[in-house]
């Protein structure tokens, strides 16, 4: 009998708790040799406190994006548990999973690829409401425009397609679309990669503001130490599908494992930490 391991801890309520997550991908087609597989996740444990920001670090191919997709219920783990709102998402039937899945939204690495090129900005933001059967057409439109305004997208952009927007505007649009169903957890998979410094600062400020306004919990995957130090409360480091380090941000200055990114970089990262507003 499984029980919800999420509980009130000394630090606060655990909102999302992954236990022993494993995921393996088989290479090639049906004629491929047996045993030709990649272990993307190997027994990953992760606890994210409500209202906090967890940074997920690791080299390319370490399993960060796979973990993000498993937590967002876009991939089914081979084994393990994902506890959220008192339920194990990894074992829920599709019908029961849908409303919970909407509360964990993933913002992808490349927003221009994650926004349907055939939809206008307004359609993109309001579509999740239509799918969820919320409100009339007018109400959905009003809600979408409100959200666009909240993330700093002027209303006159509502009929623009994603390709007509700048990189920063696309990130804002992806954030607005993710927020429209009022999720509790936002997973940012390299969400600020490829932006210039000024836009990156604007979007990270926006994320901090939204965290306060919407009581959001973030899982932030990034290679950008500045962003991690600015947003994160805790850090988890993945290597070859396994968690090799986890804890408060300061842990990076004194890594227990030799696989943690080099100490100099970690010190630099800490020295550049700014006080959060």
């Amino acid at each position: 009998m499984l029980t919800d391991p999420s509980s009130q801890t000394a630090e606060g309520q655990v909102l999302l708790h992954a236990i022993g997550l494993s995921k393996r991908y088989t290479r090639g087609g049906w004629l491929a040799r047996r045993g030709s597989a990649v272990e993307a996740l190997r027994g990953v444990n992760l606890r994210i406190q409500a209202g906090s920001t967890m940074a997920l670090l690791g080299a390319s191919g370490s399993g960060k994006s796979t973990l993000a997709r498993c937590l967002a219920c876009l991939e089914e783990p081979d084994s393990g548990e994902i506890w959220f709102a008192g339920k194990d998402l990894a074992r829920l039937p599709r019908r029961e999973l849908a409303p919970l899945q909407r509360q964990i939204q993933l913002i992808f690495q490349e927003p221009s690829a994650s926004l349907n090129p055939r939809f206008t900005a307004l359609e993109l933001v309001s579509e999740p409401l239509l799918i969820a059967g919320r409100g009339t057409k007018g109400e959905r439109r009003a809600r979408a425009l409100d959200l666009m305004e909240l993330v700093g997208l002027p209303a006159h952009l509502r009929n623009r397609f994603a390709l007509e927007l700048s990189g920063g505007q696309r990130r804002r649009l992806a954030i607005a679309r993710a927020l429209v169903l009022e999720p509790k957890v936002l997973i940012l998979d390299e969400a600020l990669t490829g932006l210039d410094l000024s836009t990156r600062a604007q979007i990270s400020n926006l994320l901090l503001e939204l965290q306060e306004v919407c009581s959001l919990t973030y899982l932030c995957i990034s290679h950008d130490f500045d962003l991690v130090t600015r947003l994160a409360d805790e850090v988890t480091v993945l290597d070859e599908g396994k968690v090799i380090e986890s804890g408060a941000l300061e842990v990076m200055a004194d890594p227990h494992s030799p696989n943690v990114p080099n100490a100099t970089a970690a010190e630099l990262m800490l020295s550049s930490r700014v006080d959060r507003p």
Partner: protein
Amino acid sequence: MMRFLANRLARTAFTLLGVSVLAFILIDLAPGEYFQDMRLNPQISRETVAALRVEYGLDQALPLKYARWLRSVSRGELGYSFAYNCPVWPLLETRIANTLILTITALVCSWLIAIPLGVWMASRAGRWEDRVSGLGNTFLLGTPDILIALGLLAFALRVTWLPTGGMHAPLADGNLNDLALHLILPVLALVAGMLPILVRHVRSAMLDVLRAPFIAAARGHGVPRGRLLFGHALPAAANPLISLFGLSVGVLLSGSLLIEVVMGWPGVGPLLLQAILERDPHIVVAAVLFSTLFLTSGSVLADIFLYVADPRIRVES
């Protein structure tokens, strides 16, 4: 848009002119002519054959023959048939209509089957349903059209209620049910020839799109499977398919010319075959021009569909 259409129409006119010149040159280079067989007939004198050649302009140089044909085109006759002894257009008019009925029906049926089948196969990619469908597809692709047509004819002979040729039963001219019944076999033959190509392209285009992050993002928002496949993925996969639609118009026409001959459909195919065998040049040129016009119309239609379907093209233009 209007400028684009005017540009495409001008290009089509130039293409038709070029194709007509090429067709005239190739027909002129081919050995033999319509009156060659008459020379072998001892009852027809050499003088009579020579007079006929002069009358039909066959003694003239190629540019003069072409100019004579162009004058006939300007009168709306599209040349003169030596075999039927009448202008070409009245001969071609009803046959073009018959060919269009067959080709357009086959085109619509092919796409109506190919789109849902290709989308379904892509959504089941790698599973046994996809593999079994893929095998069936490969089998159809490897079977020659003529074999499919002959197999269908053999089937029709066994079941007896399916007509094995023609477009109407005797005394049933104009009856739509009768026409639909006569369409079944040739349309099936054409669809069986075209379907595997279309299904492969739809499946492949959909597979590419189904791997795109915006599909995963839509799944994350709880977009249901049907809407995800047909509302999100299919429109995004449409561009290569629309271009293929333009090509399929031409491919189906060339396929239909063969099927018409095998199944006795009174279209352009049997007339063209007869004209080639009898060396009736103006009918051949007119039939080739009709094919070119049909092919370029498919291409123009595809461009218009692309313009309407893809906001990026509208934005860029």
